């Protein structure tokens, strides 16, 4: 399938997909800024690289993935998940401490809670990122 590419104001790539109501050359002239180009979508980054769309950059007729932007995207995804996981473990720890019925129980809950929160980034969900 043919699509139209152009660079946006913020430096990202925009991909315009025609519906078929108009020929693609008319869509290019009507819907896209000057300098936009028609390419086959099979030439666009595939697989894992497609998930870094916000790191795509257009050079000539080639789309590349900006490594630094991709790193920032991955880091943001990791941090968001890590914070979410740590918060859930923190709440579990607080509940355990509140339910403690003795000093020993309290200490054990606290120790287990610390270990749980410290290992939050080793969950399968985060390792998969």
């Amino acid at each position, binding site marked *: 399938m043919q699509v139209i590419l152009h660079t946006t104001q*913020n430096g990202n790539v925009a*991909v315009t*997909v025609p519906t078929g109501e*108009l020929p693609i050359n008319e869509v290019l002239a009507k819907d896209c800024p000057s300098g936009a180009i028609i390419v086959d979508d099979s030439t666009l980054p595939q697989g894992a690289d497609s998930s870094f769309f916000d790191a795509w950059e257009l050079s000539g007729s080639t789309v590349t993935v900006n490594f630094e932007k991709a790193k920032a995207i991955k880091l943001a995804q990791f941090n968001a998940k890590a914070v979410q996981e740590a918060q859930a473990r923190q709440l579990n720890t607080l509940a355990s401490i509140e339910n403690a019925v003795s000093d020993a129980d309290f200490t054990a809950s606290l120790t287990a809670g610390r270990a749980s929160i410290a290992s939050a980034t080793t969950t399968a969900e985060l390792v998969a990122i």
Partner: protein
Amino acid sequence: MAGTIVADTIQDGAGNSTSMDNAIYGSAKAWVNFNPSAGSVTLNASYNVSSVTYSGTGYYVVNFTNAFADNKYASAGAASPDSGGYTCVVGTNETNNAVYSAQTTTTCPVAAVRSYSNVLSNPYVVCVAFYR
């Protein structure tokens, strides 16, 4: 064959009638149903839409085949959840990476965000209709 029917009301066989204003101003002048995914959209069906531009995660631009007379049209949108299972909502005239885009006679920016966090996201399905 081209032709024009002039009438103030329309009526069905059972005698139910409505003002032509309802037919003219109450029907969508453009609509689109698409599946966004990173880097592209899959168009399922549309009317009076020449293309959809994927400009970033959760951010799209609908381009009309025939322009509206002005930019005062109304839109209604719906979205499915995203791949994380989060409920998404659709809005127009959105800001993408601090770049604000207002609807024009020929294009309407559309954004999808997670309802609980307001973070841009790609739902499985986005549907938008435009009225004037």
